């Protein structure tokens, strides 16, 4: 593995790791929160796939 490959990989993975860490932190906050069934139902409703990011996996064409 060359230095250029490592740099390219780090550039790709850095924002992903950062976003992942934020998501995990949010998740831990939700896991620890005192939440009622109705509140959890609302969070689940908001987590439906319509709120998921649009990903193309490099297959735009």
């Amino acid at each position: 593995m060359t230095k250029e490959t490592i740099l390219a990989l780090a550039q790709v993975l850095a924002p992903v790791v950062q976003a992942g860490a934020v998501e995990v932190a949010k998740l831990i906050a939700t896991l620890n929160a005192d939440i009622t069934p109705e509140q959890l139902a609302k969070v689940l409703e908001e987590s439906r796939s319509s709120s998921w990011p649009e990903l193309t996996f490099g297959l735009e064409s």
Partner: protein
Amino acid sequence: MKQKSYITAALAILAMLGFLAVMAVLVMHEIPVSNREFFNTGLIALVGFVSTAFGYYLGSSFGSARKTELLGPPEASALASSAEMQAGRLGQGGFARFTLMLVLLAVAFFFAILSLNGCSTMKKEAPEIVAGKSLLAMKATIITAATTGDQLCKKGVIPKADCRTLADWYLKAQPAYDLAADSMTLVLLSRDKAVWQRYQADQAPFRRIFDDVVVMSGRYGLLGGDQ
């Protein structure tokens, strides 16, 4: 040897930082009884990492490695024909992708520490609440994995055929998650009598679950266009 010693040092520092982070969390939070067994298992593994790192630097391994280094390089003629030598890979302890392994290990270690800390502070709750929260954790995992795959595909690290498979999985995961979330919502709301009576008046949640099943069946190829 120089590069390998950096890698060893980085791993040792990571283990030590992780250990200190867990200790810091332990000072601030109490571990619930239900999570203690799991937490102890993780902590034992972490202590193992730290002990190995200390053993290397304070034991004989580092001194032995240094002595070998001082003895000079092995017979160059014996190794000159080796492809790894030509590619400059022997400095990576024999692993062709040692740096990549190190990056992946560091990322996994980071998330393991976060999860361990999360587990140590998790409360004991009703089963349906735990199930609902677990579903949210699953969603976070799917999106993180898919986003990583998306980035790697866009940079051309993953072959096109695998990217198509990833896109297919992501598309199929969505209605499956919606069905699970809507079913879970129904379970959660049915626990509260007053709320349940409101939902009995209108049939929307049931209709939505039916729609979820239809969408999922379509994406999994179980239904034709006119069915």
